């Protein structure tokens, strides 16, 4: 059994972990280690071979691997150490227990950044009735089989859920010669980004069936058909309008869940809404030495947001390890009217710097006013041409505002026109 001591340990070498580690190192942390279970860095970006990454940060369109490579180079030149093929098994206060082919490894840290990403919701989470044949994949698993392993997964495909990966896979499968018969979405609006509908569905003539769902799955061995059915305004299937679609493959793109099992072993407080850690603006969790960022904290729409947020987490972890992270009274940031969640869930009122609140709306709308209030008094507001639950929104609280806080704050929104 080996023990390593470091200033900052990071779990996960995806976009979140790479940005956090690089920032920790640049902030002055001595020894920074990333623990990664895969044999390569890059995380899920490795399989996102389509363009569209990095518009915000680099001002150009990169593929997933290209985006990852830039951060890998930065982390590498900053002197971040990467432990590949190593799985973090358990978090014990100031120590991580990891496994690799060399044996068990204990990593003792001054601060830890959790950057494990997320997993996909499954058919079982949705409780779709029917048989259990082969040929049912989550969109990300299909993406891995096709883009990493080079496998063909099926010929006739139906996709349930209009999440981004699902739409991107509709295009990918079409390019691979499969016939994508429909993308089926339970909600009356798109779950993912509009640009993905335009570029991945419309351009390829793939029908999008909004307010529809899958009510039956058939096939004794391999999948033979799914039954698709419209839903009423309460999302109940209208069964007399069902239609059976023959297919050999069903992809599910029905949501992502932060992968917080390691956090649970460390008894980190988790939010029942985001299913990620409860954090303050420093991305600091209920264990002050542990920080969280990226999709393990809350599921993001764009990798650019992940990188920015994670760099903050990495910097703060380095400051904490050096005993330099300020602490002051913390107040809750809660979701109000029309808002599903706010991250961070707490704001430390030290007034050192401005604080960005990230949040998602519940339903899409036009001419939406989003505002943050304290005690009924407006702190900041912004008018948006359009908002949708698939897009992450934000509000920035100035230094002065943060310093003046003396109670909980609330984020709410009002739509000029509801688009649901």
């Amino acid at each position, binding site marked *: *059994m080996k023990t390593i001591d470091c200033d900052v340990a990071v779990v996960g070498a995806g976009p979140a972990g790479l940005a956090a580690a690089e920032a920790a190192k640049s902030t002055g942390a001595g020894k920074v280690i990333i623990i990664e*279970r895969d044999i390569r860095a890059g995380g899920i970006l490795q399989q996102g071979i389509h363009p569209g990454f990095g518009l915000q940060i680099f001002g150009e369109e990169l593929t997933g691997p290209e985006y990852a490579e830039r951060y890998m180079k930065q982390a590498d030149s900053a002197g971040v150490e990467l432990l590949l*093929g190593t*799985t973090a*098994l358990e978090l014990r206060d100031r120590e991580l*227990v990891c*496994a*690799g*082919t*060399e*044996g*068990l490894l204990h990593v003792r840290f001054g601060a830890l950044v959790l950057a494990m990403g997320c*997993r*996909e919701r*499954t*058919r*079982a*989470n949705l*409780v779709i*009735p*029917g*048989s*259990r*044949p*082969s040929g049912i*994949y*989550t969109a*990300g*698993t299909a993406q*891995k*089989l096709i883009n*990493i*392993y080079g*496998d*063909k*997964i*099926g*010929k006739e495909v139906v996709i349930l859920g209009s999440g981004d990966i699902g739409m991107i896979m509709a295009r990918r499968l079409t390019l691979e010669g499969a016939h994508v018969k429909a993308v089926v979405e339970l909600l009356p609006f798109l779950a993912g980004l509009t640009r993905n509908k335009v570029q991945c569905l419309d351009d390829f003539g793939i029908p999008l069936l909004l307010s529809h769902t899958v*009510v*039956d*799955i*058939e096939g*004794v*061995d*391999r999948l033979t058909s799914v039954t698709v059915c419209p839903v009423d305004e309460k999302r109940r299937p209208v069964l007399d309008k069902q239609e059976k679609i023959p297919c*050999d493959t069903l992809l599910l793109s029905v949501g992502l869940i932060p*992968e917080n*099992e390691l956090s*649970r072993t460390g008894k980190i407080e988790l939010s029942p809404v985001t299913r990620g850690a409860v954090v303050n603006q420093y991305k600091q969790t209920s264990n002050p030495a542990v920080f969280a960022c990226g999709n393990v904290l809350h599921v993001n729409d764009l990798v650019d947001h992940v990188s920015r947020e994670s760099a903050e987490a990495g910097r703060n972890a380095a400051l904490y390890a050096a005993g330099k992270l300020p602490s002051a009274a913390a107040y809750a940031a809660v979701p109000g009217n029309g808002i599903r969640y706010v991250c961070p869930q707490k704001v430390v009122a030290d007034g050192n710097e401005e604080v960005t609140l990230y949040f998602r709306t519940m339903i899409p709308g036009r001419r939406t006013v989003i505002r943050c209030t304290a005690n009924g008094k407006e702190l900041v507001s912004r008018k948006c041409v359009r908002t949708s639950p698939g897009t992450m929104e934000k509000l920035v609280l100035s230094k002065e505002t943060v310093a003046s806080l003396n109670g909980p704050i609330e984020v709410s929104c009002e739509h000029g026109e509801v688009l649901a």
Partner: protein
Amino acid sequence: MHKADILIIGAGAVGTALAREFSKFKVKVIVCDKNDDVGGDASKSCSGLTSTSATMPVGTLECKIRTISHTMVDVLCRDLDIPIIHCGSIAPVLTDDQMEQVPKLIDRAWQNGVWDYEFMPREEILEMEPTLNPEIKGGIYSPRDSQINQFLMVVAEAENAAENGVEFLLDCAVTGIDTKDGRIQRVITTKGEIEAKWVINAAGLYCDDIAKMVDECDFSVHPRKGEFFVLGHDTPVKVKHIISSVPTPKTRGVLVIPTTDDNLLVGPTADDVEDKNDKKTTREGLEEVRTKALEMVPGLRFEDTITQFVGARPARVPEGYNILVSEKAKGYVGISGIRSTGLTASMALAKYVIHEMKAAGLELERKVGWIRTRRGIVKFSDKSDAEKDALIASDPRYGKIVCRCEQITEAEIVQAIHRPVGARTLDAVKRRVRAGMGRCQSGFCGPQVIGIIARELGISEYEVRKRGVAAYMLDH
């Protein structure tokens, strides 16, 4: 052509228990099964309960065999390293009607020799099991009901039988049986002909189809479909005991079962259907399970469901255990009517069947050097830090976590494939070592497990199946 003294059709709980029992003797035994793996249909998708005979019909062969068999379970688990939890069961009494049933149920249990099947008042039951509906009027406590790992029970018996010389032919469906001069000659299968002196029909749900081949079928079998939910490790409300509905003549009703793997199993329904291939969960069935389970344990969180499945118990018409040593087709032995009690009853049933066969002229000579015990695959996630480190030193593949949800390593998966009667499909790997059994339902490890199976078996990824004849994972 394969040749055997004894051919067992069906590798479920009954078939594998018979195989292990026969492996003590100097006979050539073959077990064939249409599925890709042992575990049958009913056995692998049942609740895994091994219960006393409290609720059995009094005086029946089923009751007698099961009562004897239940006493053998612990020794089997010890010898074959099968996980079991002795959690006991509680049947909460919710209505006045159920309360009226209680004395009758206790009386029947008494007649069946289950004297520790007791009614307890509300307060005592709630103290034992605080998750129960506080509205209960009391409950029946049955301390010797247990939950056994139903997958590993069959796998362990099969492995042990194979180690003692039994041959298993899987993906091998029986299509006909030849008789000559009133005696069994050979069995025709999708893997060729098997010449056998004795043929034992342990085909469960399909035993009527086999029985028709020798014209010994005066009964029918249809599936009694049971739908289940599996809830994950992290679900906040967990039960300490098996929670069962107050039994009716047809079924024990919906149960909430803590499993050996720290999941909750919730179900089943009991719907008689016609189609033996009908393994479909239904909206109505799952809703029924949810409603009935919540009546007993109101805090259950069905949001934490990691899968749902259907188990098919073979329902015989007319009912009842039936062991036929045929006069008409000498050498044919038919086992039917075992329904949902087969897991518990299988050990004694195997002995009973052999006893009957001996009475009909079968001669058996005990083997020297029969191997009694079998050890399971060493589970990395169960071990202490020092033990984990030692495991990795002994085989570095223990350091490669493949299934992150259940922390299953490559070493465990490779062993599952290379053991006797090894896994050849994703589902078979999953049942042996739990890779893919967790919250992501093989989303992360599936592609890797496909690769490991292909590599270890020397086949293409495109040949790798989820299970069954043609459930290919990729575009075959």
